[in-house]
């Protein structure tokens, strides 16, 4: 009985890698290990649960038992790896040694937490997986007012979803526009206006300075002195790749677990993909690059070494009140932005000095132009 291919993590990366691998190899033993309940779900769909009135069970796609059967694999849930032992090609789960033929790290990213003064720091929720979503849904039942921390992609998606779900949302972030770093200001203004039109309120500039219990609710004070009474707080201030296990084992890590174009880490027989991985210097927290990596790594694990390549990968943001597609210029490339349109329909394009398209941000009706524009975008990893 040969040692299995072991995949750590059963998010979209872990389960999709397993599926792609099984298309090529139906015999090599496969073991998936996850710290959560092992249910298959789509992380992007967590930003749509309130509008669709779906609880965690409704967003769950398959139980781990069903996944194990479909994948002809063993799935160990609620299990944490103690350490990776690259020298002996094994993992430790407490006192149990688990040998691997190949190890794939697909642990994803974790939320960044900023401690908040006051007695209610423990009343701050985050939603980064299905179990988090279940907890938040339970806590939010029957409540009215949500204070949302963070105005990035996830913060805006939650603001839209919670508002559609009937909640009063106030959003706080220490920036001048929504999705800074990702969006041209004109597009950001369109999204913010759309959300404000739904009733969301923005406090851009200050941070949450303190949070205290007050009666049945919470009293939040911002750094600019604003007082906000709310029922619960949802934090979406950023994500960082989970690199601790890899770093502790001596694997090269940077922002993410460092891998090459074949998804190989610095140590033999250990790979990484998904939100936790930094592929040829690029760490992306989206599904499209994850799928490209899953297909390439499956080939490599099946004995056919394959380098991943990334074409243009525009990001569709789930703010239905203001449809938005954004393809930021590749890191390091400089260009000039031009903006057409007004109000909710913004077409912001970035061209380099030779007139080639580098990136775009499209809102409202301008989104319809995305497929034509995609053909002119540069590839991210050739």
């Amino acid at each position, binding site marked *: 009985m040969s040692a299995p291919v072991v995949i750590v993590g059963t998010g*979209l990366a872990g389960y*999709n890698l397993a599926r792609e691998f099984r298309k090529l190899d139906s015999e090599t033993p496969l073991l998936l290990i996850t710290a959560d309940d092992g249910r298959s779900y*789509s992380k*992007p*769909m967590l930003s*749509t649960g309130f509008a669709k009135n779906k609880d965690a069970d409704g967003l769950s*796609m398959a139980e781990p038992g069903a996944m194990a059967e479909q994948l002809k694999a063993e799935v160990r849930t609620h299990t944490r790896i103690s350490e990776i032992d690259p020298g002996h090609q094994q993992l430790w789960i407490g006192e149990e040694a688990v040998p691997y033929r190949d190890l794939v790290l697909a642990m994803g990213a974790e939320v960044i937490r900023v401690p908040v003064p006051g007695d209610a720091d423990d009343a701050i929720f985050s939603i980064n997986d299905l179990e988090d979503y279940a907890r938040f849904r339970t806590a939010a039942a029957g409540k009215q007012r949500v204070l949302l921390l963070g105005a990035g992609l996830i913060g805006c998606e939650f603001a839209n979803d919670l508002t559609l779900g009937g909640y009063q949302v106030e959003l706080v972030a220490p920036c001048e526009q929504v999705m800074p770093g990702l969006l041209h200001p004109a597009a950001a203004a369109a999204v913010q206006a759309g959300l404000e039109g739904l009733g969301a309120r923005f406090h851009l500039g200050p941070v949450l300075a303190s949070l205290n219990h007050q009666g049945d609710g919470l009293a939040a004070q911002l750094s600019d002195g604003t007082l906000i009474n709310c029922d619960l707080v949802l934090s979406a201030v950023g994500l960082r790749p989970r690199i601790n296990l890899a770093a502790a084992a001596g694997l090269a890590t940077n922002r993410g677990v460092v891998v090459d174009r074949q998804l190989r880490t610095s140590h033999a027989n250990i790979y990484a993909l998904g939100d936790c991985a930094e592929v040829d210097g690029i760490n992306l927290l*989206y*599904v*499209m690059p*994850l*799928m*490209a990596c899953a297909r390439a790594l499956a080939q490599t694990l099946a004995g056919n070494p394959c380098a991943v390549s990334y074409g243009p*990968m525009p990001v*569709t943001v*789930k703010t239905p009140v203001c449809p938005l597609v954004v393809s930021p210029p590749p890191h390091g490339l400089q260009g000039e932005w031009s903006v057409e349109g007004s109000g909710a329909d913004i077409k912001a394009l970035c061209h380099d000095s030779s007139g080639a398209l580098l990136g775009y941000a499209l809102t409202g009706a301008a989104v319809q132009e995305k*497929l*034509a524009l995609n*053909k002119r975008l540069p590839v991210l990893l050739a």
Partner: protein
Amino acid sequence: MRKWQCVVCGFIYDEALGLPDEGIAPGTAWDAIPADWLCPDCGVGKQDFEMIEIA
């Protein structure tokens, strides 16, 4: 004409509209789309779509 929704990202393929920019003519049935076609928004395969009721 039916609509198919990607269960991972929510993208909707409407058979009546097709995807002309990808060479899929309006009216193209789901089954007629090549098996290796990928969701244009997130890259998952056809097996990750399900049919949804026409609104």
